[in-house]
């Protein structure tokens, strides 16, 4: 049987093909449990994940793949309709399955 491609591997490849994360300040809206943050956690300068779902954020804070040498990304409960950040705070914003 033809094997099914691993969708997360494909998604990860798209992330790295579309964006150079090195040294960037990244906001991920709809970060959930941080699955897609794990794709670039070691390249970005700093990361903030925002999501409405408190339980998902608790899972993200405990996710070992999201540990960085200088700590972990910041996770905030909130909505894209009102982002608690100053203008141009981030080099890159990711709408992660959330628009």
């Amino acid at each position: 049987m033809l094997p099914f491609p691993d969708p997360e591997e494909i998604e990860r490849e798209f992330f790295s093909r579309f964006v150079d994360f090195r040294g960037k300040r990244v906001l991920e809206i709809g970060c959930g449990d941080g699955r897609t943050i794990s794709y670039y956690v070691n390249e970005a300068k700093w990361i903030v994940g925002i999501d409405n779902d408190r339980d998902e954020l608790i899972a993200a804070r405990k996710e070992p793949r999201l540990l960085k040498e200088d700590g972990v990304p910041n996770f905030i409960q909130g909505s894209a309709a009102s982002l608690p950040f100053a203008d141009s705070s981030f080099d890159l914003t990711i709408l992660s399955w959330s628009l």
Partner: protein
Amino acid sequence: MVHALHETWRVTRSEVLDIRPLSLSPLVFVRDRNGGDTFCGELKWCDDSGQHHIQSDTALARVIANGKFVIAKDDRFDWFDSFDTADELVEQVHDDWLTWTVDEDTALKLMRAMKDSGRGAKAFIKQGIRVRLLKKMNNERMNNEQ
């Protein structure tokens, strides 16, 4: 939704990566052990989420038309979820997909195809995912359009 895009524009200095499923329905297949695929049907919206997808596309098109962003890259890929049995697929959609459902006709075709395909067959769902990189444009028009 347009407001969320305005907020995204405001806090971003240069780029936005938008990744999400296409508004087209995910497709249900059975793959036999020789790699032959049998189409069984489409997942159906179980609420008004289909409308939400259309609204997202419309909102993004609107902010692009208003000069807030330009599309720098645009591509898509297929996301495959595979299952050993028809029941597993139906249960997974019911428990985790939330906005989608397997209708009776598709479920029947799925069960029949699994039976006809014999040992080693897999049921799977194929869903199109769109990825777009948007470049922020510093167009002040958007501050006046809300």
